[in-house]
């Protein structure tokens, strides 16, 4: 019944990752996660704090990629303050990952050996601090065995095995969700390995398994990811992403 695109389903899946978070900073990174975070606040999670992508907390439903869009500024949040919020635990970040493995370790630093990278990527950025301090989710717009790998080359964001080794020192570690262009994943298994939580409409569990470079936990009945409601679709199309940047990240 829904005429939602894959990108719009991904937006709702990202929004769902923030359900229940209450009055904390939601820090989605990437076009579709940002629209998702803003959609969550505009609908079922009204107390979330969200930035303008820079150093301000903005109270209104800001469209992505619209220069000069009016902002209702509710607080100042420069770079150093965001780090302090991270350490306080009042934040849920959704990061990207060049590689992610079965236990949720993330790599954004480099491909190949750490001391002689074949490809130098961004660096550790804030990933170690994010994952040891706060709930973390990931967004992967290009689900493939190159991204979902058996073992990441460099652990920037720490996975469930690293957290388990740390014991109580990792008591704030929580990987909430992984959302990709094919489905939604979590680590709610006995061994804290990645589980297929839902497949997006038009995708089968077999498609996901084929695109994943490690053994994925696949339940017998995999539900379909929730499609946007009419209200959500209108918010996405008319308010939050009027220029359809979402289709550039996940083409129809």
């Amino acid at each position: 019944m829904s005429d939602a695109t894959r990108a719009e389903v991904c937006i709702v899946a990202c929004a769902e990752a923030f359900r229940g978070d209450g009055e904390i900073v939601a820090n989605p990174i990437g076009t579709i996660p940002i629209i998702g975070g803003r959609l969550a606040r505009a609908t079922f999670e009204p107390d979330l704090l969200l930035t303008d992508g820079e150093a301000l907390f903005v109270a209104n439903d800001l469209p992505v990629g619209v220069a000069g869009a009016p902002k209702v500024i509710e607080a100042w949040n420069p770079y150093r303050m965001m780090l302090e919020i991270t350490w306080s635990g009042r934040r849920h970040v959704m990061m990207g990952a060049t590689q992610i493995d079965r236990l949720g370790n993330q790599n954004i630093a480099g491909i190949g050996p750490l001391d002689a990278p074949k490809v130098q990527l961004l660096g550790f950025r804030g990933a170690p601090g994010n994952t040891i301090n706060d709930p973390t989710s990931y967004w992967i717009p290009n689900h493939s065995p190159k991204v979902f790998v058996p073992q990441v080359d460099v652990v920037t964001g720490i996975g469930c095995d690293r957290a388990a080794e740390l014991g109580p020192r990792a008591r704030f570690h929580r990987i909430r969700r992984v959302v990709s262009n094919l489905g939604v994943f979590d680590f709610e298994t006995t061994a804290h390995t990645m589980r297929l939580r839902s497949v997006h409409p038009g995708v089968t569990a077999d498609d996901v398994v084929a695109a994943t470079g490690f053994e994925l936990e696949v339940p017998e009945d995999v539900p379909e990811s929730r499609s946007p409601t009419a209200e959500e679709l209108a918010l996405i199309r008319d308010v939050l992403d009027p220029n359809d940047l979402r289709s550039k990240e996940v083409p129809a």
Partner: protein
Amino acid sequence: MADKRATEDEVVGELRDGMTVGIGGWGSRRKPMSIVRAIARSDLRDLRIVSCGGPDVGLLCATGKVAEVVFAFVSLDSIPLEPHFRAAVESRSVSTVQHDEGTFFLGLQAAAWRVPFLPTRVGLGSDLFRAHPGLRTVRSPYDDGEELVAAPAIELDAAVVHLNRGDERGNGQILGVDPFMDDLMLRAARQRFMSVENIVPTDDFLAEGPVESLRVPRHLTDAVVEAPRGAHFTSCPPDYERDESFQREYAATAKSPEAWEAFRTKYLDLPTHAAYLAQVGLS
């Protein structure tokens, strides 16, 4: 009363081979590019660059000034990866010491406070310990006994920052929304150099911004350089945004040595910031 006005070349004349130099700004934002270019055309070498990295890092790597980069990220923002930095690391012409943004922040704070480290959870369990040789943990001396990361002080021989306004005595004003690590770098450094868009009378500061914009009191600076458009091609709001087309041109030069040499001849082998502004059509 000290008049701290200086030129880019006078600032560079204070630097020495092998120094650890902190560069302010963040990514491709509010970088002290006129001083960075002056370093690039100098004889300095083997610098250790500490930066929330952007084209400052790439440009100094590409001109052979750098032995080591201390960083949590290097990015051009609108172009996610810095191609000249990538090339330098992948060809192993520079070495790296990697940080989480948190250990980077705390390391500068520790240096500013003259303590050897600050404790944090940031880095536990990650490969930061492999990417940052010498990084250690510390055990809490209190009843909790928790083991934490000891983010080591990042002491700077020199810091170089670019602000919106300054006065002759070396007070500085940030009119943009984010001070980044700039004031902290000045506190963490032995020699402190600030370029500004405009040098104004002290009494004029509050005409443009609130008292909270006066982030740099003059005891934190040794010299002030007036460099209008001094952050070009990075952004310096509210004075100007990033020059995206120039940035694309800069990034594209990483594709071939010939393109880089042409860029270098055209934009870097110039005697002064004024000559650069004339070359890019901004004077």
